[in-house]
């Protein structure tokens, strides 16, 4: 089983979620994050002080999928999240050894 972690633009959450659901990936967990990368931040002023803010709001989506569906999921995410501009985000894929559904203690792919 593979864990797909995608860092995306906040405005794209809905589209990505729908794209994943469409290809049959129901389960996912979403986290609010802030990202640092090539995308340039902005400057804020508060009274006399100037802050250059280089951490931008991002959404992190985590979904664990069976190996065979992973590529499809990745493509779905890309299709939904891509604008072609810097800051679109990244996808990280890594291996997961075990999945357990807490409700009924099912394990493995069936628990995804």
């Amino acid at each position, binding site marked *: 089983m593979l864990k797909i972690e995608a860092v995306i633009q906040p*405005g794209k959450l*809905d589209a990505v979620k729908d794209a994943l659901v469409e290809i049959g990936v129901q389960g996912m967990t979403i986290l609010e994050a802030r990202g640092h990368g090539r995308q340039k931040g*902005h*400057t*804020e*002023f*508060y009274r006399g002080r100037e802050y250059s803010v280089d*951490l931008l709001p991002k959404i992190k989506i985590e979904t664990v999928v069976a190996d065979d569906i992973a590529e499809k999921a990745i493509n779905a995410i890309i299709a939904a999240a891509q604008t072609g501009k810097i800051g679109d985000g990244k996808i990280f894929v890594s291996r997961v050894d075990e999945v357990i559904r807490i409700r009924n203690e099912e394990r493995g792919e069936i628990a995804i």
Partner: protein
Amino acid sequence: MRLRSVKVYLAVLLGLVLATAPAFGQAASTPKVDSGDNSWMLVSSALVLMMSGPGLALFYGGLVRKKNVLGTFMQTFAMMAVITVLWAVVMYSLAFGHGNAFIGGFNHVFLKGVSLTPNPTYAATIPEQTFMVYQLMFAIITPALITGAFAERMKFSAMLVFSVLWALFIYSPMAHMVWGEGGLLNAALGGKFPCLDFAGGTVVHVTSGVSALVTAIYLGKRIGFPKEPMPPHSVVLSFIGACLLWVGWFGFNAGSALASGTLATSAFVATHFGAAAAALGWLAAEWFRNGKPSALGGISGAVAGLVAITPAAGFVTPMSALAIGAIAGVFCFYMVVKVKNIFGYDDSLDAFGVHGAGGTLGAILTGIFANSSINPLLGAGKATGFFEGNHTQVLNQAIGVGLAWGISIVGTLILLFIVDKLIGLRVSPEDEAIGLDLSQHGEEGYHAEASAH
């Protein structure tokens, strides 16, 4: 009209006083400040300012997305600053100076001649400067109401220029026509089409609400609307704002008696009753339609009721106020929930659905429910509203409202066009995406990073 009503009223009161206290006889000729009336009018002025900031700013600010909260605040706050200066320079003169049936003149520019003694034309027992500053608070909140329609997408600079022009060319003449000496619609001071508007249903709510609709359509929808969900980022803030609006509205409506006599009491009661009944009306309609009554519905209903009762406040009985409120609550609910969706415009915070629709409804209902026992403005004992037998008053109300609609639509379109050509109305798509707070003001409403404990 509220001016005449006050005068009539005071005349009655004075009569009573004179009967028992002949020593006061001469006072009638030299207008004298009444400490009680002035106390109430200063409080009312403060309350109406509180309606703008923090009231309206919070009400609107809670309804937008987090990234636009300060930008939304600023659209109201800027009015508190800019309109004040404008008012002092020329607007007061345009609205309440000597002029013709449509607009005042320049005799009061830079507040020349606006003294600390009463101006009996407008209010015989308070300093004219009290009257001036009280009216200023109305001029502040009116353009601020419009901002609900173009929330989350207008440039701050364009908003400023538009608001200044709007205040000068739409608000000033409307205020003059309805409340100014010799104004076309002024029921108290010799208007051709006497239109009852106690505290600004037409002047404030119809003009701002209709102009709001026009700007919403002219500017177009927010990017992503209506597909993307854009729920209020904090109904909590909106709730605080709405409650402060309710409290402040006592200054708005009961203060429009321009004295703290029985007319103020009557308007106070009508205001409260209208708000309460409208909140119930909206909640009931919502409960019926969606299965659940919401907090946002409750406060929206209250505001709708306050809008609708505004023109009627000094003319109707408490029981009529309940009726007006209930009708307005249900009506505005359907305007916001159904009518808006049918036409599909993005009146983001429902400035038209609540103020335009509620104000228009209220103006008509005023013509229906107005009662001479509450306010003998048209003459003691003379039928005032439809139910009392004065069937033409509804027509007069319609004329007033129609004029306000006309001026607002045409005027706003022209002004939008000019500002759009001059500096552009909308922020860029990128700026809209990152939000007004950062793009227009270089700051953020909330700093999670700051929670570094």
